[in-house]
């Protein structure tokens, strides 16, 4: 507004976002952006209460809110306001140390370069060993990431950056192509949003067995080294490669999300599924290894829903339809079903995934338009064979990336 069309402007922002605004405005080249702060919250307040905010003083400057707004639009610019220059940013030195492991663990925490769990020290030797997991040049740029696309600046990262974070997460070199594919996707695992969003990654193809990903009992839990460390590497890369998750600036989640530590890692149980694997549904060949990114609110058990009840004759099509009707259309809905549930669904007449999704989509939208398209719905198959439990949540499919290109 200010620079493109030359119209003077003021942003009204609630008090808790001051640090975020200060840093983000500076990083967008407008450190003197005119901002007036009002109390928080706005949500849940009546019209008269909000009018009171305007009649009151700024919680930051102490000046009358409206007087400050008018001043921002009418006070002539200073010389500094009219200055334009390019500022080169640097994240920091290439290396730290030599120092003791204890001091380095503390340093990484102080610099907010960890998830606050102990890390494996990314020494020269360990990073070199990790880089053996790919044929790519360590200096090759893998991708870019932002704490929230369109809001925060994009940071870029190389194969080496990804390898360093993979070491810190405790990953093995043979996992690196999967982590590089996730990195290429460029989706931050920790969004800055106050919604406390979650992220998921679906992993398909031969790589699952090559690196020992778990897709049977406890598939989404902490029961495999590969699942756990690949998910954690995504978060560490988001923190360090994408500058995400800095509380107060690039992270504002109100209550936080525990899945942000290692994310929702879903290796599909392809051989036990009655349908095509997820990556094949997205246009890849069965023999290709692929990661697919999910974004949204997270996953919970269907038993938590009044529609996920046990019955003498289970009707999973109706269950999923009724549960999905209750989901916010923003991210659509994804179900993660066990192979047993998947086969029940097949017996209910759904021989293909397209047919199943279309049936559920039409059911969800039968009374009123809810989801925009069948693309709002995903059904994934993973887990053990020991019961009929399954999970669901508002998770939207974003994109898929080849793992094989990063071998």
């Amino acid at each position, binding site marked *: *507004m*200010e*620079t493109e*069309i*030359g*119209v*003077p*402007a*003021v*942003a*009204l*922002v609630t008090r*808790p*976002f001051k640090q975020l605004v200060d840093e983000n405005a*500076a*990083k*967008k*080249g*407008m450190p003197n952006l005119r901002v007036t702060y009002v109390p*928080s*919250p*706005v*949500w*849940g*307040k009546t019209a008269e209460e*909000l009018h009171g905010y*305007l*009649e009151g003083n700024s919680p930051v400057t102490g000046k009358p809110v*409206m007087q400050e*707004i*008018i001043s921002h*639009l*009418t006070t*002539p610019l200073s010389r500094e306001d*009219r*200055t334009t*220059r*390019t*500022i*080169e*940013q640097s*994240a920091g*030195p*290439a*290396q730290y140390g030599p*120092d*003791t492991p204890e001091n380095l663990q503390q340093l*990484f925490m102080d610099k907010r*370069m960890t998830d606050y769990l102990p890390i494996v*020290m990314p020494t*020269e030797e360990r990073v070199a060993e990790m880089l053996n997991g790919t044929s790519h040049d360590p200096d090759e740029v893998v991708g870019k*990431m932002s704490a929230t696309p*369109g809001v925060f*600046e994009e*940071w870029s990262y190389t194969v080496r*950056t990804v390898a*360093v974070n993979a070491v*810190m997460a405790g990953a093995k070199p043979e996992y690196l192509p999967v982590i590089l594919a996730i990195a290429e996707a460029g989706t931050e695992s920790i969004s800055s949003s106050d919604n406390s969003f979650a992220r998921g990654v679906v992993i398909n193809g031969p790589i699952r067995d090559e690196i020992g990903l778990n897709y049977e009992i406890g598939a989404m839990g902490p029961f495999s080294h590969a699942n756990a460390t690949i998910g954690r590497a995504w978060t560490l890369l988001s923190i*360090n490669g994408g*500058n995400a998750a800095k509380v107060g600036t690039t992270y504002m989640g109100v209550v936080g999300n525990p899945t942000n530590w290692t994310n929702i890692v879903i290796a599909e149980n392809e051989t036990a599924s009655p349908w095509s694997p997820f990556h094949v549904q997205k246009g890849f060949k069965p023999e290709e290894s692929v990661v697919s990114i999910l974004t949204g609110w997270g996953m919970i058990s269907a038993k938590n829903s009044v529609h996920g009840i046990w019955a003498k004759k289970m009707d999973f099509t109706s269950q999923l339809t009724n549960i999905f009707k209750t989901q916010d259309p923003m991210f659509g809905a994804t179900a993660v079903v066990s192979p047993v549930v998947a086969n029940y669904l097949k017996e209910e007449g759904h021989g293909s995934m397209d047919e199943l999704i279309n049936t559920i989509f039409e059911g969800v939208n039968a009374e009123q338009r809810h989801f925009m398209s069948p693309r709002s719905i995903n059904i994934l198959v993973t887990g053990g064979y020991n019961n009929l439990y399954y999970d669901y949540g508002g998770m939207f499919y974003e994109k898929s990336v080849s793992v094989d290109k990063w071998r």
Partner: protein
Amino acid sequence: MTKYTVHDPRGFPPSVTGKRLAPRLESLDGRVLYLVDCLFDNSEVFMKQLQRWFAEHLPAIITRIITPRESWVDDPDMRKRIESDGDAAIFGVGL
């Protein structure tokens, strides 16, 4: 005790190019002031109260509430409208 030298795990931030602010107005009287409802929670009510405040205290300022087509998305049509007949803008409310 063994000491280690370790890699910095961080990526590469972009360079920042400074942007110039728009010239300010001598007065808002008789000017068109767009009140941009950013579509956050309850911002519609907030911006109506802002419009009410101007009507009560500074009626010489012409205020118009405007909304982008959706939250978080740049709306060139909205920008074009502000550019064509707007003199200043207030964006609210960020939360």
